[in-house]
């Protein structure tokens, strides 16, 4: 059957029916429906199950505050759990399934929790499940985990796209109700750049639903005209489907735009996360109606009065045929009147107040609606749907009930301004007795970068409760925001509306006032998490007096709605239990986002190929084309090795090492950092940065240097070449370039700013190729163009020249122990040069090698590797590099730190070579064991492995390591531990395993 009422439903387009499925059943609604309204139209009141007791749950609200009606939506790559039906626009082909039940929605085994709910009060799990000890992990927790959670996990990778967008405005206005619109008008007329966003697809908020009269015409008309005016203003942008998700420091706000949620097939990003920087932010976020706490208030069919009204007016739905309204304020009457005027039955308005004489009450009476004053609902009949209510006197215990049959209960507990965005960044609140709610304190706003307040509230979000005052308040907000943003506001007239005289509400936190315990145990505060009045009272009794304690102990307000419906009622019950005023109890902290936002939107465009920048050398494509196995080095990808055919990585590495040692190897060394340091004080500067003396390096020569942090630790190394009298070129480690460049600039700008030195990072200006091996010189001579002989270009020298027609700079340096030239060419010619080397080198056995071969060859030579021999705790002295530490210099970075007692100690572990007795390869990171245990029962150690490889050259395992007094213990055999408890014997040897005299690199 359909619950649609002909001629009603201002948001519906009845000409466009839409078909969708719920739990496999095909249903139909109209364009303009939300999933909630469409389900209700199809008389589907039961929409889910609660979190803890698996109780039947129907929709209770009509907007973002909905705690109950969450569904699994979509399928495959577009599946999404916990979709709130009230904020889900209906589209053709939408598929939804209800959640948190087994086997199905109508019959859920989990409901067993409900029948024993008496035994599962707040925090019961803290008091139980303790024995036997293993049981929590293996028995109880699995049960808890299984019954917890709500929606199903998505299983496939998301195929939609997401993006971010930076917007800068003078005034951001959040909320498209009449307050937001009026504020936008006021701010816009001042000339300020204004962005007005509305989270739903529709403007107008409550006023248009409740038929307010503005400037003598229906709110709807005024709205359409005013929006048109705004549309016509160049300095104003108005957008729907963007939710103000969060307010952050210095005027930063997040806007969550849902672009295709209502039209998934559109070729557009699904969500766009707006990062808005606003001089001023106006939150015109409206208010949320509070439920009332009475026994059975969670039974499907019990709904917020405003929601019942929304469904009727916006979507032409009769939630019930017979609706009992229960209220503590005038607003509830609006629902009763609307229903009655729509021809539906309203058997009674239960008003907790005595003598209600307000205009709205009079109107209701005039329509023949019976008003039960000083009464309360003491019980709700029905299981999966309301069938009636038991009414008793408000000032009682809930006895002597009179039953009224009904299929819907509309409750109105008063209105709470939406203060989330105001509070995110520190805005403070005042308790307003008259309306029993917290409202923003304009005197204590969040503070911006200049200490100025940068958030202003407008309309009911400020606590202005009636149309007339809402408009005035919003106009003032718009003007003062513009002014604060530096725009003189025009004196424009404010739209006028009459305030309806209302009778003061009666804060009634539980119904009836003296309800007995068995009733309080059925009064729901948090519908999703199943937190009841009795739970809060228990928490208070147990000393969880801070509101944060109570929240965490009972889980009140921790559900997906983050307490939008439950917080104030919970606070009130807690305060009452503690016998203190509500402001004394205070609120929990409001944290972003206002409602949950997709992880996809937060990640934005950064996924797949552009998840992170991938730095490529000019030769990158060649590596890829030659089956290189790439390894990340910082953001670079470098070839680890180039497997051929069926080769394993290790076989490939062995081949590359052997070929390089015996013939000719080519390495793409472009990632090596290259920094030009120039100026009269360049030498002096480098003397401070490096542990060695650099100022006395001769132009045309190279020197290996070490850099330490001020804390003494070795941070980088590389070869420095002196280009001319006041110019040096410093090589850094791959990926070290930016760090060291920044390090140099920092010292020059913040410490030695009077020194005349400029630094430029030319790392990417050059492709650099290491030409290595006995045939290295041959291939260069074949290319021709410059003299690369030993005499013309000796070891540790460099020269500019031409090779094979390329402008090159050749460094005669070696990290492998072989005859080696590192050749820099302009990056744009890097690939061509690389190809030329391969072509010319073919006859000499040229073959590319990767980083692993590089590492093995440097280890065979006993060269240290930053990141292997060093780990941030190592000083050069530990590595036997004292030769590279100048004794002549008064000072260099790290010098003083290295003199501290622990660093000067003779008992530091020091670098040695290690050879296993059986020739095997020592495990990575293995520790050398010492006798006994320390005071904490840990096995004593006396060293560790820093680099360990199988040497294809020496056909055995070789390693470097740090060992206590190592250099004095040459030849000694020590034991290295294995994770499996076994040990490996290794001999302490010289770290240089290959060509100790260094003849090969010097030919």
């Amino acid at each position, binding site marked *: 059957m359909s619950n649609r009422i002909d001629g009603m439903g201002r948001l519906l387009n009845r000409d466009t029916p839409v078909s969708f499925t719920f739990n496999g059943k095909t249903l139909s609604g109209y364009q303009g429906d939300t999933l909630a309204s469409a389900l209700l139209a199809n008389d589907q009141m039961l929409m889910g199950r609660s979190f803890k007791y698996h109780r039947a749950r129907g929709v209770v609200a009509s907007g973002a505050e909905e705690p109950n009606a969450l569904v699994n939506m979509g399928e495959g790559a577009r599946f999404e759990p916990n979709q709130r039906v009230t904020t889900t626009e209906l589209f053709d082909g939408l598929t939804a399934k209800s959640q948190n039940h087994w086997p199905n929605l109508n019959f859920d085994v989990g409901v067993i929790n409900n029948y024993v709910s008496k035994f599962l009060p707040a925090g019961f799990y803290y008091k139980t499940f303790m024995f036997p000890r293993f049981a929590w992990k293996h028995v109880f927790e699995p049960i808890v985990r299984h019954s917890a959670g709500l929606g199903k996990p998505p299983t496939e990778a998301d195929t939609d796209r997401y993006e971010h967008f930076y917007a800068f405005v003078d005034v951001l206005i959040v909320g498209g109700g009449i307050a937001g619109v009026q504020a936008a008008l006021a701010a816009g007329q001042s000339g300020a750049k204004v962005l007005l966003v509305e989270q739903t697809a529709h403007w107008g908020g409550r006023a248009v639903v409740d038929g307010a009269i503005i400037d003598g015409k229906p709110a709807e008309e005024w709205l359409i005209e005013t929006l048109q005016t705004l549309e016509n203003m160049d300095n104003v942008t108005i957008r729907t489907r963007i939710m103000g998700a969060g307010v952050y*420091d*210095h005027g930063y706000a997040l806007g969550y735009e849902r672009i295709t949620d209502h039209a998934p097939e559109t070729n557009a990003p699904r969500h766009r996360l707006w990062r808005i920087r606003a001089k001023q932010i106006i939150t015109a976020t409206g208010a949320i109606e509070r439920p009332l706490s009475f026994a059975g208030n969670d039974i499907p069919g019990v709904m917020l009065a405003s929601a019942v009204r929304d469904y009727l007016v916006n979507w032409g739905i009769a939630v019930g045929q017979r609706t009992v309204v229960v209220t503590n304020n005038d607003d509830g009457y609006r629902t009763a009147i609307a229903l009655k005027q729509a021809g539906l039955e309203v058997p009674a308005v239960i008003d907790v107040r005595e003598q209600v004489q307000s205009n709205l009450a009079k109107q209701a009476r005039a329509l023949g609606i019976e008003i039960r004053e000083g009464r309360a609902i003491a019980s709700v009949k029905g299981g999966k749907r309301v069938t009636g209510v038991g009414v008793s006197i408000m000032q009682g215990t809930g006895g002597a009930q009179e039953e009224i049959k009904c299929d819907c209960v509309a409750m109105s507990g008063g209105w709470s301004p939406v203060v989330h965005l105001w509070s995110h960044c520190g805005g403070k609140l005042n308790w307003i007795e008259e309306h029993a709610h917290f409202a923003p304190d304009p005197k204590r706003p969040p503070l*911006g970068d200049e*200490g100025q307040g940068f958030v202003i509230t407008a309309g009911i979000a400020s606590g202005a409760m009636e149309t007339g005052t809402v408009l005035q308040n919003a106009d003032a907000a718009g003007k003062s925001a513009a002014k604060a943003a530096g725009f003189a506001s025009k004196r424009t007239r404010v739209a006028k509306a009459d305030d309806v005289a209302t009778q003061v509400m009666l804060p009634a936190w539980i119904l009836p006032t003296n309800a007995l315990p068995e009733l309080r145990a059925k009064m729901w505060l948090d519908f999703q998490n199943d937190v009841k009045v009795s739970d809060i009272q228990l928490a208070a009794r147990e000393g969880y007096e801070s509101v944060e304690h109570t929240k965490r102990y009972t889980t009140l307000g921790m559900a997906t709605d983050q307490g939008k419906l439950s917080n104030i009622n919970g606070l009130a019950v807690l305060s009452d239990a503690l016998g203190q005023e509500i402001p004394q109890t205070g609120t929990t902290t409001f944290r972003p986002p206002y409602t949950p936002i997709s992880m996809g939107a937060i990640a934005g465009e950064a996924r797949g190929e552009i998840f992170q920048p991938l730095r490529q050398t000019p030769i990158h494509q060649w590596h890829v084309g030659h089956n290189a196995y790439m390894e990340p080095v910082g953001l670079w990808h470098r070839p680890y090795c180039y497997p051929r055919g069926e080769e394993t990585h290790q076989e490939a590495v062995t081949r590359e090492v052997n070929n390089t040692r015996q013939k000719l190897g080519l390495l793409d060394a472009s990632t090596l950092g290259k920094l030009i340091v120039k100026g009269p004080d360049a030498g002096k500067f480098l003397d401070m940065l490096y542990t060695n003396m650099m100022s006395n390096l001769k132009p045309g020569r190279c020197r290996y240097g070490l850099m330490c942090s001020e804390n003494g630790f070795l941070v980088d190394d590389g070869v420095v070449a002196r280009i001319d009298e006041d110019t040096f070129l410093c090589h850094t480690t791959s990926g070290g370039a930016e760090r060291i460049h920044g390090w140099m600039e920092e010292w020059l*700008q*913040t410490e030695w700013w009077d020194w005349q030195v400029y630094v430029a990072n030319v790392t990417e200006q050059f492709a650099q190729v290491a030409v290595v091996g006995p045939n290295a010189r041959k291939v260069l001579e074949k290319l021709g163009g410059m003299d690369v002989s030993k005499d013309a270009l000796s070891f540790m020298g460099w020269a500019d020249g031409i090779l094979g027609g390329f402008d090159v700079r050749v460094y005669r340096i070696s990290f492998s122990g072989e005859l080696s030239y590192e050749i820099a060419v302009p990056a744009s010619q890097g690939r061509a040069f690389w190809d030329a080397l391969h072509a010319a080198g073919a006859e000499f056995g040229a073959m590319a090698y990767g980083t692993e071969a590089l590492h093995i060859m440097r280890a065979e030579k006993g060269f240290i590797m930053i990141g292997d021999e060093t780990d941030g705790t190592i000083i050069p002295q530990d590595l036997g590099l004292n030769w590279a530490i100048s004794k002549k210099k008064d000072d260099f970075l790290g*010098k*003083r730190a290295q003199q501290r007692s622990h660093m000067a100690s003779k008992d530091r572990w020091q670098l040695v070579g290690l050879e296993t007795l059986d020739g095997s390869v020592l495990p990575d990171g293995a520790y050398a064991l010492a006798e006994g245990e320390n005071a904490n029962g840990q096995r004593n150690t006396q060293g560790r492995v820093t680099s360990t490889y199988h040497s294809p050259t020496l056909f055995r395992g070789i390693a470097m390591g740090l060992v206590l007094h190592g250099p004095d213990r040459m030849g000694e055999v020590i034991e290295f531990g294995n994770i499996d408890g076994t040990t490996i014997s290794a001999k302490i040897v010289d770290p240089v395993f290959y060509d100790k005299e260094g003849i090969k690199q010097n030919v």
Partner: protein
Amino acid sequence: MLIFECPYCGVKAEETELHAGGEAHLTRHGAGASDDDLKSYLFMRKNPKGVHFERWQHANGCGKWFHAARCTMTLEVFGTYSAQTFEPPAELVKKIKKKRPDWEGWT
């Protein structure tokens, strides 16, 4: 998401364009310094609740280091100024004193 005006290029840069460099106006203690001086230079920090003088670099920008005075409780930025100085500008100190009368001063 903080913003600072770079005193060198005038850009009102947001945090993602900046690199935070910690407490400002530390005196470098190098060769010959006492252990205590070295320690305070390397590690000891004011870490105040309130006005904090600190270093920032306009890393994704003009690349210059600058100084800023900022409240660690409200995140208000009182001002930014050159990195080539040993102490904050007098007028900035005055401005802060005016806004925070009970502030004990920058040293």
